[in-house]
């Protein structure tokens, strides 16, 4: 004999099926008489005494609402069929396919009364144009040839280039190696199974610093210093340092993974809401 729990589960499944059928009829303009309204109501009534928790009662209410929508569609369908506008869509489609374009246009022109409309410039636009014209400099003034500005050539020191952020303080490869060491140290400190969470590694006190770390981390991964692990279902990302840089990854399909670093995520991470 079926247990009560199984019976309830079956009931829920049946109600969900009824809702999705009704929705399909509504959305895809299918014939609303495809839904057996009597049978659907009977099913909803049969399971109604079983429902105790609000979720089940809501499901029941949703089912009745979907059935009611289909009944409304059925009523509209009957009304439409009884009006003079009703045409069998297949018959009309067949006619259209067999008619040539010129015949179609000739027919349409008999019932088409295009709107007569004049487009014009408004007083407001005329005033704006006038003002623009008054303020406009004469051509010879606008197109005056500007003598090229003389720029004195000079030398910039390395410090100045660093200050202007044209050069980094250290060589890129040195910085990358430093990040790799940092990652290894972080894993040794707080890592689990030889890896740390992505945000746990790139997150920093300021947003600018975080973006900078994310930028360097991308190179760590690309150059084989570390591996990125993504668990899509859990929405978790881990970064795992490699013992040696892996330049060749045999038999593995390499993929590019864009990782956005929005300010909101950084703020969440600061509040401890993002791991």
């Amino acid at each position: 004999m079926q247990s009560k729990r199984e019976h309830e589960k079956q009931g829920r499944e049946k109600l969900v099926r009824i809702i999705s059928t009704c929705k399909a009829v509504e959305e895809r303009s299918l014939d609303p008489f495809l839904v057996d309204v009597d049978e659907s109501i009977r099913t909803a009534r049969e399971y109604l005494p079983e429902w105790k928790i609000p979720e089940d009662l809501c499901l029941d209410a949703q089912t009745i609402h979907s059935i009611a929508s289909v009944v409304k569609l059925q009523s509209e369908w009957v009304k439409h069929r009884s009006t003079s506008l009703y045409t069998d869509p297949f018959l009309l489609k067949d006619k259209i396919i067999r008619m040539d374009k010129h015949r179609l246009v000739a027919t349409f022109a008999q019932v088409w009364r295009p709107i007569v409309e004049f487009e014009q410039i408004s007083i407001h636009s005329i005033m704006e144009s006038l003002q623009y014209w008054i303020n406009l400099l004469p051509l010879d003034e606008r197109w005056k040839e500007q003598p090229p500005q003389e720029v004195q050539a000079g030398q910039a020191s390395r410090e100045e280039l660093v200050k202007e952020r044209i050069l980094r303080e250290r060589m890129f490869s040195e910085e990358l190696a430093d990040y790799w060491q940092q990652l290894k140290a972080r894993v040794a400190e707080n890592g689990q199974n030889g890896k740390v969470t992505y945000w746990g590694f790139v997150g920093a006190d300021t947003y600018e610093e975080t973006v900078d770390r994310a930028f360097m981390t991308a190179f760590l991964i690309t150059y084989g210093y570390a591996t990125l692990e993504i668990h899509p279902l859990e929405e978790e990302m881990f970064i795992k340092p490699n013992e040696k840089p892996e330049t060749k990854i045999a038999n593995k399909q390499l993929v590019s993974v864009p990782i956005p670093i929005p300010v909101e995520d950084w703020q969440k991470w600061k509040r401890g809401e993002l791991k």
Partner: protein
Amino acid sequence: MSKRKATYASKVKRATHMLFYKRHAKPGVKGWELRKALGSDYPKVLKVLDDYLKELDLKVQTVFENEKTIEKPSLEQLDKARFLITLRGELTPKEAKMVGWRIDDLAGLAIAISHIIANKGKAPRKEVEDLLREKLPGWKVGSNVDRYIRYGYLTQDESEQLYLDWRTRAEVDQKALIDLLLRTEA
């Protein structure tokens, strides 16, 4: 000219300016705008204007809210309606071309409108495009449907269902179109 006649003549002129010149994104004027400009007797003014326009093969077309055709509209219904100037008689296909439509595009519009009418005023865009491909080159179909939407003949919802829009309701005699198509020998 009597004072009454002179008043009406001036109101007819004002109504002509309002109806012919495009004031908003959509052509035409709402009833309440006409009431504000011409007074509460604006339906009478429109009637006089309509009589004048008859000779020019034009007419004042009333488009009521919710697609309804109302035999004896109340003032409230007229206030909410949109008034437009349309052609009174028929265009020949040659003239239709002069209005700025290519034969292909016009045939496509006729197909799209009639298909939607036959499907109770709503049809999936894909279905309409498939039907249009029977008559138009494939590369044109998508852009043509977009154009019909942009001009206000069709409208589309988020689930890509197409419906008839305000311009079709104003310009096309839907019942006559279906009757004519069904009667025409292929």
